[in-house]
Protein backbone atom coordinates (compact mmCIF):
# COMPACT_ATOMS: atom_id res chain seq x y z
CA UNK A 1 0.00 0.00 0.00
CA UNK A 2 1.37 3.34 -0.93
CA UNK A 3 1.75 6.07 1.64
CA UNK A 4 -1.10 8.52 2.01
CA UNK A 5 1.25 11.51 2.29
CA UNK A 6 3.98 12.03 -0.19
CA UNK A 7 7.35 13.00 1.43
CA UNK A 8 6.98 16.49 -0.02
CA UNK A 9 4.06 17.14 2.35
CA UNK A 10 6.59 17.28 5.18
CA UNK A 11 7.77 20.64 3.87
CA UNK A 12 4.18 21.72 3.54
CA UNK A 13 3.49 20.77 7.16
CA UNK A 14 6.53 22.70 8.38
CA UNK A 15 5.58 25.65 6.24
CA UNK A 16 2.03 25.72 7.53
CA UNK A 17 3.15 25.71 11.20
CA UNK A 18 5.40 28.63 10.38
CA UNK A 19 2.76 30.25 8.19
CA UNK A 20 0.04 30.03 10.83
CA UNK A 21 1.85 32.69 12.85
CA UNK A 22 1.73 35.02 9.88
CA UNK A 23 -1.84 34.13 9.07
CA UNK A 24 -2.87 34.98 12.65
CA UNK A 25 -0.94 38.24 12.54
CA UNK A 26 -2.49 39.16 9.20
CA UNK A 27 -5.95 38.40 10.58
CA UNK A 28 -5.38 40.52 13.64
CA UNK A 29 -4.10 43.30 11.42
CA UNK A 30 -7.17 43.05 9.19
CA UNK A 31 -9.38 43.11 12.27
CA UNK A 32 -7.59 46.23 13.45
CA UNK A 33 -8.20 47.94 10.14
CA UNK A 34 -11.81 46.83 10.23
CA UNK A 35 -12.30 48.21 13.75
CA UNK A 36 -11.10 51.60 12.53
CA UNK A 37 -13.11 51.54 9.31
CA UNK A 38 -16.34 53.45 8.96
CA UNK A 39 -18.28 50.18 8.93
CA UNK A 40 -17.35 49.61 12.56
CA UNK A 41 -17.12 53.21 13.82
CA UNK A 42 -19.96 54.79 11.85
CA UNK A 43 -17.70 57.75 11.01
CA UNK A 44 -19.00 59.70 8.05
CA UNK A 45 -22.20 57.65 7.73
CA UNK A 46 -25.24 59.96 7.71
CA UNK A 47 -27.98 58.76 10.06
CA UNK A 48 -31.57 58.77 8.79
CA UNK A 49 -34.22 60.29 11.03
CA UNK A 50 -38.01 60.24 10.97
CA UNK A 51 -37.90 64.02 10.46
CA UNK A 52 -35.04 64.89 8.08
CA UNK A 53 -33.71 67.70 10.27
CA UNK A 54 -30.90 69.56 8.53
CA UNK A 55 -28.15 71.34 10.47
CA UNK A 56 -27.03 72.75 7.13
CA UNK A 57 -30.30 74.63 6.66
CA UNK A 58 -30.77 75.70 10.26
CA UNK A 59 -27.17 76.53 11.19
CA UNK A 60 -25.52 77.63 7.96
CA UNK A 61 -28.70 78.81 6.23
CA UNK A 62 -30.45 80.58 9.10
CA UNK A 63 -27.39 81.27 11.26
CA UNK A 64 -28.91 79.72 14.40
CA UNK A 65 -26.53 79.26 17.34
CA UNK A 66 -26.09 75.71 18.71
CA UNK A 67 -27.35 76.92 22.09
CA UNK A 68 -30.75 77.90 20.68
CA UNK A 69 -31.49 74.16 20.59
CA UNK A 70 -28.77 72.41 22.61
CA UNK A 71 -29.44 74.47 25.72
CA UNK A 72 -27.61 72.22 28.19
CA UNK A 73 -24.22 72.20 26.52
CA UNK A 74 -22.65 74.96 28.65
CA UNK A 75 -23.89 73.84 32.05
CA UNK A 76 -24.36 70.11 31.99
CA UNK A 77 -22.73 66.89 30.90
CA UNK A 78 -25.53 66.32 28.39
CA UNK A 79 -25.88 68.75 25.47
CA UNK A 80 -29.60 68.04 25.18
CA UNK A 81 -31.83 67.43 22.18
CA UNK A 82 -34.48 70.13 21.70
CA UNK A 83 -38.09 69.33 22.61
CA UNK A 84 -40.83 69.64 19.99
CA UNK A 85 -41.83 73.02 21.42
CA UNK A 86 -38.50 74.48 20.28
CA UNK A 87 -39.18 73.46 16.68
CA UNK A 88 -42.67 74.92 16.95
CA UNK A 89 -41.26 78.34 17.94
CA UNK A 90 -40.77 78.75 14.20
CA UNK A 91 -42.68 75.92 12.57
CA UNK A 92 -45.96 77.17 14.02
CA UNK A 93 -45.79 79.55 11.05
CA UNK A 94 -43.11 78.19 8.73
CA UNK A 95 -43.65 75.28 6.35
CA UNK A 96 -46.92 74.51 8.13
CA UNK A 97 -48.16 72.31 5.28
CA UNK A 98 -44.95 70.37 4.72
CA UNK A 99 -45.42 66.60 5.08
CA UNK A 100 -41.79 66.40 6.26
CA UNK A 101 -42.86 68.24 9.39
CA UNK A 102 -46.03 66.24 10.05
CA UNK A 103 -44.39 64.15 12.83
CA UNK A 104 -43.36 67.40 14.55
CA UNK A 105 -46.88 68.79 14.43
CA UNK A 106 -48.34 65.50 15.57
CA UNK A 107 -45.93 65.35 18.48
CA UNK A 108 -46.93 68.89 19.42
CA UNK A 109 -50.64 68.02 19.24
CA UNK A 110 -50.45 64.79 21.19
CA UNK A 111 -47.59 65.55 23.57
CA UNK A 112 -45.74 62.37 22.56
CA UNK A 113 -42.01 62.89 22.13
CA UNK A 114 -40.31 62.82 18.77
CA UNK A 115 -37.90 59.93 18.51
CA UNK A 116 -34.39 60.71 17.31
CA UNK A 117 -31.86 58.02 16.49
CA UNK A 118 -28.65 58.63 18.43
CA UNK A 119 -25.65 59.43 16.29
CA UNK A 120 -23.01 59.58 19.02
CA UNK A 121 -23.33 57.00 21.75
CA UNK A 122 -20.40 56.28 24.00
CA UNK A 123 -20.18 52.96 25.78
CA UNK A 124 -21.99 53.15 29.14
CA UNK A 125 -18.75 52.57 31.05
CA UNK A 126 -17.37 55.89 29.85
CA UNK A 127 -18.14 59.23 31.49
CA UNK A 128 -18.26 62.27 29.25
CA UNK A 129 -19.08 65.87 30.09
CA UNK A 130 -19.76 68.68 27.62
CA UNK A 131 -19.62 71.61 30.02
CA UNK A 132 -15.97 71.09 31.00
CA UNK A 133 -14.85 70.89 27.37
CA UNK A 134 -16.80 74.00 26.42
CA UNK A 135 -15.48 75.93 29.44
CA UNK A 136 -11.88 74.96 28.65
CA UNK A 137 -12.05 76.07 25.02
CA UNK A 138 -12.64 72.87 23.04
CA UNK A 139 -14.82 73.82 20.07
CA UNK A 140 -17.87 71.86 18.92
CA UNK A 141 -16.28 71.44 15.50
CA UNK A 142 -13.10 69.91 16.98
CA UNK A 143 -15.12 66.87 18.01
CA UNK A 144 -18.22 67.01 15.80
CA UNK A 145 -16.72 68.43 12.59
CA UNK A 146 -18.44 70.92 10.28
CA UNK A 147 -21.95 70.40 11.63
CA UNK A 148 -23.12 73.40 9.60
CA UNK A 149 -22.48 71.41 6.44
CA UNK A 150 -24.38 68.29 7.45
CA UNK A 151 -27.83 67.87 5.85
CA UNK A 152 -28.14 64.79 8.06
CA UNK A 153 -25.93 64.25 11.10
CA UNK A 154 -22.93 61.95 11.00
CA UNK A 155 -20.04 61.16 13.30
CA UNK A 156 -16.83 62.93 12.43
CA UNK A 157 -14.66 60.96 14.88
CA UNK A 158 -14.59 57.37 16.12
CA UNK A 159 -15.02 58.35 19.81
CA UNK A 160 -12.54 55.58 20.57
CA UNK A 161 -10.41 55.88 23.68
CA UNK A 162 -7.30 56.57 21.61
CA UNK A 163 -9.07 59.57 20.10
CA UNK A 164 -9.95 61.04 23.50
CA UNK A 165 -6.40 60.42 24.73
CA UNK A 166 -4.80 62.03 21.68
CA UNK A 167 -6.24 65.30 22.87
CA UNK A 168 -5.95 64.76 26.63
CA UNK A 169 -2.22 64.15 26.13
CA UNK A 170 -1.71 67.30 24.07
CA UNK A 171 -4.64 69.68 24.52
CA UNK A 172 -2.49 72.60 23.29
CA UNK A 173 -2.86 71.21 19.77
CA UNK A 174 -6.64 71.68 19.84
CA UNK A 175 -7.88 74.34 22.27
CA UNK A 176 -9.11 77.71 21.08
CA UNK A 177 -10.29 80.90 22.82
CA UNK A 178 -13.53 80.35 24.74
CA UNK A 179 -15.56 82.81 22.71
CA UNK A 180 -14.76 80.83 19.54
CA UNK A 181 -16.14 77.52 20.84
CA UNK A 182 -19.41 77.82 18.92
CA UNK A 183 -17.82 79.24 15.79
CA UNK A 184 -18.18 76.67 13.02
CA UNK A 185 -15.78 78.56 10.73
CA UNK A 186 -12.84 78.51 13.15
CA UNK A 187 -9.66 77.34 11.45
CA UNK A 188 -6.57 76.16 13.26
CA UNK A 189 -4.21 79.13 13.05
CA UNK A 190 -0.59 78.61 11.91
CA UNK A 191 0.64 79.47 15.41
CA UNK A 192 -1.74 76.97 17.10
CA UNK A 193 0.95 75.49 19.36
CA UNK A 194 1.94 78.90 20.68
CA UNK A 195 -1.68 79.97 21.13
CA UNK A 196 -2.56 76.57 22.61
CA UNK A 197 0.21 76.67 25.21
CA UNK A 198 -0.89 80.14 26.21
CA UNK A 199 -4.53 79.04 26.57
CA UNK A 200 -3.60 75.87 28.48
CA UNK A 201 -1.92 78.12 31.02
CA UNK A 202 -4.67 80.74 31.04
CA UNK A 203 -7.52 78.23 31.43
CA UNK A 204 -5.51 76.05 33.80
CA UNK A 205 -5.91 72.93 31.65
CA UNK A 206 -4.45 69.70 33.00
CA UNK A 207 -3.55 66.53 31.13
CA UNK A 208 -6.25 64.21 32.44
CA UNK A 209 -4.98 60.71 31.71
CA UNK A 210 -5.93 58.82 34.84
CA UNK A 211 -8.31 55.95 34.05
CA UNK A 212 -10.79 57.19 36.63
CA UNK A 213 -11.27 60.47 34.75
CA UNK A 214 -13.39 58.65 32.21
CA UNK A 215 -14.11 55.28 33.83
CA UNK A 216 -15.73 56.14 37.15
Amino acid at each position, binding site marked *: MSQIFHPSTNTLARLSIFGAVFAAAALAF*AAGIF*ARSSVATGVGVAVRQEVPFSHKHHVEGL*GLDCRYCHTGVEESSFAGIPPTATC*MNCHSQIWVDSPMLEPVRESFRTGD*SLEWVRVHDL*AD*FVYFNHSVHVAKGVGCSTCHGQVDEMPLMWKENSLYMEWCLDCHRQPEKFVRPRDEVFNMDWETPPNQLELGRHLVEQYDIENLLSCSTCHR
Partner: protein
Amino acid sequence: MGIRFAAGAALVLALSGCYAQEMANQDRYEPLEASGLFEDGMASRQPIEGTVARGQLFEDDHLYRGTVAGQPATEFPFEITAEIMARGQERYQIFCTPCHDQLGTGAGIVVQRGFRRPSSLHVDRLRAAPPGYFFDVMTNGFGAMSSYASQVPAEDRWAIAAYIRALQLSQNANEADLAPEDLELLGAQR
Protein backbone atom coordinates in the same frame (compact mmCIF):
# COMPACT_ATOMS: atom_id res chain seq x y z
CA MET B 1 -10.88 24.51 5.76
CA GLY B 2 -12.99 27.29 4.21
CA ILE B 3 -15.61 27.09 6.91
CA ARG B 4 -13.08 26.90 9.69
CA PHE B 5 -11.25 29.89 8.32
CA ALA B 6 -14.46 31.89 8.13
CA ALA B 7 -15.37 30.89 11.69
CA GLY B 8 -11.93 31.90 12.90
CA ALA B 9 -12.12 35.22 11.13
CA ALA B 10 -15.55 35.90 12.63
CA LEU B 11 -14.23 35.09 16.10
CA VAL B 12 -11.32 37.49 15.77
CA LEU B 13 -13.60 40.21 14.47
CA ALA B 14 -15.99 39.62 17.34
CA LEU B 15 -13.16 39.86 19.84
CA SER B 16 -11.89 43.04 18.24
CA GLY B 17 -15.00 44.75 19.44
CA CYS B 18 -17.37 45.20 16.54
CA TYR B 19 -20.09 43.18 18.19
CA ALA B 20 -22.17 44.82 20.89
CA GLN B 21 -20.60 44.40 24.29
CA GLU B 22 -22.83 44.01 27.29
CA MET B 23 -20.77 46.45 29.34
CA ALA B 24 -21.23 49.03 26.62
CA ASN B 25 -24.99 48.95 26.93
CA GLN B 26 -25.89 48.52 30.55
CA ASP B 27 -29.30 48.22 32.17
CA ARG B 28 -29.66 51.88 32.96
CA TYR B 29 -31.24 54.80 31.18
CA GLU B 30 -29.44 57.70 29.59
CA PRO B 31 -31.01 61.16 29.48
CA LEU B 32 -34.03 61.26 27.15
CA GLU B 33 -33.85 57.53 26.40
CA ALA B 34 -37.08 55.75 25.48
CA SER B 35 -38.59 53.30 27.95
CA GLY B 36 -41.39 50.78 27.62
CA LEU B 37 -41.99 51.00 31.35
CA PHE B 38 -44.09 54.15 31.35
CA GLU B 39 -47.15 55.13 29.41
CA ASP B 40 -45.58 58.18 27.80
CA GLY B 41 -42.64 56.06 26.61
CA MET B 42 -40.00 58.25 28.26
CA ALA B 43 -37.40 57.24 30.82
CA SER B 44 -37.04 60.81 32.10
CA ARG B 45 -39.86 61.38 34.58
CA GLN B 46 -41.65 64.63 35.41
CA PRO B 47 -41.97 65.58 39.08
CA ILE B 48 -45.34 64.65 40.54
CA GLU B 49 -47.74 67.54 40.21
CA GLY B 50 -47.70 69.83 43.20
CA THR B 51 -44.27 68.78 44.44
CA VAL B 52 -41.42 71.27 44.63
CA ALA B 53 -37.77 70.37 44.28
CA ARG B 54 -35.25 71.93 46.61
CA GLY B 55 -34.33 75.43 45.45
CA GLN B 56 -37.20 75.52 42.95
CA LEU B 57 -39.98 77.13 44.92
CA PHE B 58 -39.60 80.31 42.84
CA GLU B 59 -41.24 82.44 45.53
CA ASP B 60 -39.75 85.71 44.40
CA ASP B 61 -42.42 87.33 42.19
CA HIS B 62 -40.05 90.05 41.06
CA LEU B 63 -37.27 87.69 39.94
CA TYR B 64 -39.39 84.86 38.51
CA ARG B 65 -42.56 86.56 37.30
CA GLY B 66 -41.38 90.09 36.66
CA THR B 67 -44.10 91.62 38.79
CA VAL B 68 -44.13 93.76 41.92
CA ALA B 69 -47.48 93.89 43.72
CA GLY B 70 -49.16 92.48 40.62
CA GLN B 71 -47.78 95.19 38.29
CA PRO B 72 -44.97 94.74 35.71
CA ALA B 73 -41.76 95.54 37.57
CA THR B 74 -40.26 98.95 36.85
CA GLU B 75 -36.90 97.97 38.32
CA PHE B 76 -34.50 95.10 37.72
CA PRO B 77 -34.38 92.52 40.53
CA PHE B 78 -30.58 92.76 40.70
CA GLU B 79 -27.92 95.30 39.84
CA ILE B 80 -27.06 95.50 36.14
CA THR B 81 -23.28 95.37 35.77
CA ALA B 82 -21.21 95.48 32.58
CA GLU B 83 -20.83 91.71 32.90
CA ILE B 84 -24.59 91.15 32.96
CA MET B 85 -25.02 93.51 30.03
CA ALA B 86 -22.52 91.46 28.01
CA ARG B 87 -24.36 88.28 28.98
CA GLY B 88 -27.63 89.89 27.86
CA GLN B 89 -26.11 90.81 24.51
CA GLU B 90 -24.87 87.24 23.97
CA ARG B 91 -28.22 85.70 24.94
CA TYR B 92 -30.18 88.21 22.84
CA GLN B 93 -28.06 87.26 19.85
CA ILE B 94 -28.64 83.55 20.39
CA PHE B 95 -32.37 83.59 21.10
CA CYS B 96 -33.87 86.78 19.71
CA THR B 97 -31.94 87.84 16.57
CA PRO B 98 -33.45 85.06 14.40
CA CYS B 99 -36.66 87.14 14.37
CA HIS B 100 -35.98 90.55 15.92
CA ASP B 101 -32.54 90.98 14.22
CA GLN B 102 -29.38 92.44 15.75
CA LEU B 103 -30.85 95.91 16.09
CA GLY B 104 -34.35 94.95 17.17
CA THR B 105 -36.13 96.31 14.12
CA GLY B 106 -37.98 93.02 13.58
CA ALA B 107 -36.51 91.93 10.23
CA GLY B 108 -34.62 88.80 11.31
CA ILE B 109 -33.94 85.92 8.95
CA VAL B 110 -36.90 83.81 10.09
CA VAL B 111 -39.19 86.79 9.44
CA GLN B 112 -37.66 87.04 5.97
CA ARG B 113 -38.64 83.38 5.49
CA GLY B 114 -42.26 84.11 6.30
CA PHE B 115 -42.73 84.39 10.07
CA ARG B 116 -45.03 87.17 11.31
CA ARG B 117 -43.10 90.41 11.60
CA PRO B 118 -42.85 91.71 15.18
CA SER B 119 -43.02 95.37 16.06
CA SER B 120 -39.70 97.22 16.12
CA LEU B 121 -38.35 97.56 19.66
CA HIS B 122 -37.73 101.22 18.86
CA VAL B 123 -41.31 102.52 19.07
CA ASP B 124 -42.44 104.90 21.81
CA ARG B 125 -44.76 102.31 23.34
CA LEU B 126 -41.89 99.86 23.92
CA ARG B 127 -39.42 102.56 24.91
CA ALA B 128 -41.83 103.45 27.69
CA ALA B 129 -42.53 99.85 28.68
CA PRO B 130 -41.01 98.81 32.05
CA PRO B 131 -38.35 96.02 32.19
CA GLY B 132 -40.98 93.72 33.72
CA TYR B 133 -42.93 93.91 30.45
CA PHE B 134 -40.07 92.47 28.40
CA PHE B 135 -39.54 89.82 31.05
CA ASP B 136 -43.21 88.91 30.81
CA VAL B 137 -43.15 88.61 27.00
CA MET B 138 -40.16 86.24 27.18
CA THR B 139 -41.69 84.24 30.02
CA ASN B 140 -45.23 83.83 28.75
CA GLY B 141 -44.95 84.54 25.04
CA PHE B 142 -46.84 87.21 23.13
CA GLY B 143 -49.24 86.47 20.28
CA ALA B 144 -47.35 84.54 17.60
CA MET B 145 -44.16 84.48 19.70
CA SER B 146 -43.92 81.51 22.02
CA SER B 147 -42.54 81.44 25.54
CA TYR B 148 -38.77 81.33 25.94
CA ALA B 149 -38.92 80.34 29.60
CA SER B 150 -37.79 76.77 28.96
CA GLN B 151 -34.81 77.84 26.85
CA VAL B 152 -33.68 80.92 28.79
CA PRO B 153 -33.37 80.86 32.61
CA ALA B 154 -34.93 83.77 34.56
CA GLU B 155 -31.62 85.55 35.29
CA ASP B 156 -30.75 85.53 31.60
CA ARG B 157 -34.20 86.88 30.69
CA TRP B 158 -33.49 89.90 32.90
CA ALA B 159 -30.07 90.30 31.31
CA ILE B 160 -31.75 90.32 27.88
CA ALA B 161 -34.28 92.90 29.11
CA ALA B 162 -31.36 95.09 30.22
CA TYR B 163 -29.70 94.69 26.83
CA ILE B 164 -32.94 95.67 25.06
CA ARG B 165 -32.91 98.88 27.12
CA ALA B 166 -29.36 99.50 25.90
CA LEU B 167 -30.37 98.76 22.29
CA GLN B 168 -33.24 101.22 22.57
CA LEU B 169 -30.93 103.90 23.94
CA SER B 170 -28.40 103.23 21.20
CA GLN B 171 -30.97 104.15 18.56
CA ASN B 172 -32.40 107.12 20.42
CA ALA B 173 -29.54 108.98 22.06
CA ASN B 174 -28.75 112.69 22.08
CA GLU B 175 -25.29 114.12 22.27
CA ALA B 176 -26.16 115.42 25.71
CA ASP B 177 -26.70 111.83 26.97
CA LEU B 178 -23.10 110.86 26.27
CA ALA B 179 -20.24 111.02 28.71
CA PRO B 180 -17.42 113.44 27.70
CA GLU B 181 -14.98 110.59 26.93
CA ASP B 182 -17.53 108.91 24.65
CA LEU B 183 -18.08 112.19 22.82
CA GLU B 184 -14.34 112.44 22.34
CA LEU B 185 -14.28 108.90 20.90
CA LEU B 186 -17.09 109.83 18.52
CA GLY B 187 -15.26 112.99 17.51
CA ALA B 188 -12.11 111.02 16.82
CA GLN B 189 -14.05 108.62 14.61
CA ARG B 190 -15.68 111.36 12.57
